[in-house]
């Protein structure tokens, strides 16, 4: 089921990449998408699609992400280019609220791309995310930022 669900965006990507929006090309792209998804079908077999998908919140999430990404690149630039780098790095444990694999992954990746934080690992029981932070002087603040930021938005977008 989720294979079919995923093949549509792939077919759209095909159309975009090949640069021909003819129906033939779309059908062809769809067929190819199904084929390539068929190869990895096993990985989706035990996975149900998210219960709720909220396009609006996805857009909001994307917007937040782009903003954070730009900001983080800039912050890195500032840090790196400053003559004396003031760093208090460290790895901290972040207790996860999200449970779904997809959500965990999304969260972890978003954290990596945002300022000052980098996902290192998820615990075996999937309850803790280990995050490396450039500024670990106040771990609580970092945890709060993540929980109130991306984690909440993700739960809104993919309930």
């Amino acid at each position, binding site marked *: 089921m989720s294979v079919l669900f995923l093949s549509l965006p792939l077919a759209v*990507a095909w159309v*975009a*990449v*090949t*640069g*021909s929006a003819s129906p033939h090309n779309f059908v062809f792209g769809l067929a190819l998408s199904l084929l390539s998804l068929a190869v990895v079908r096993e990985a989706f077999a035990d996975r149900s699609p998210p219960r709720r998908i909220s396009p609006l919140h996805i857009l909001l999430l994307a917007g937040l992400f782009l903003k954070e*990404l*730009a900001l*983080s*690149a800039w912050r*890195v*630039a500032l*840090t*790196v*280019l400053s003559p004396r*780098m003031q*760093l*208090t*790095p*460290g*790895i*901290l*444990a972040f207790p996860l609220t999200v449970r779904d694999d997809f959500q965990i992954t999304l969260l*972890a*990746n*978003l*954290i*990596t*791309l945002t*300022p*000052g934080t*980098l*996902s*290192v*690992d998820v*615990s075996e029981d999937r309850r803790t995310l*280990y995050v*490396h932070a*450039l500024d*670990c*002087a106040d*771990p609580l603040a970092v945890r709060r930022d993540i929980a109130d930021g991306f984690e909440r938005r993700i739960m809104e977008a993919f309930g």
Partner: protein
Amino acid sequence: MMDYTLAIATALLLLAGAFFALVAAIGILRLPDLYTRMHAASKAGTVGSGLLLLAAGIYSGELAVLARALAGFLFFILTAPVSAHLLAKAAHKTGHFPADISVRDDMRMR
């Protein structure tokens, strides 16, 4: 006029992209340990090459090319954190712990 807009946008993107790539490189050079260097690579690096791709996409003036450039950008965003995570995890697991200036390491207490 459109030409100039496009050209200036491209030029800016090029310079910004190159700048961020350089920043990432400098970060890799200057930052004290693997984990801090990863910050530079995964953020500035991704943004840098993303912007350069975008510049190429815009400059071509073809929608398909732009689409491809965006697809490429998206792809980096999809993969960069994963590879950073895998490398960091592997390094940590094999005893490459953060440098001494680090203030804490919750993973080590597991």
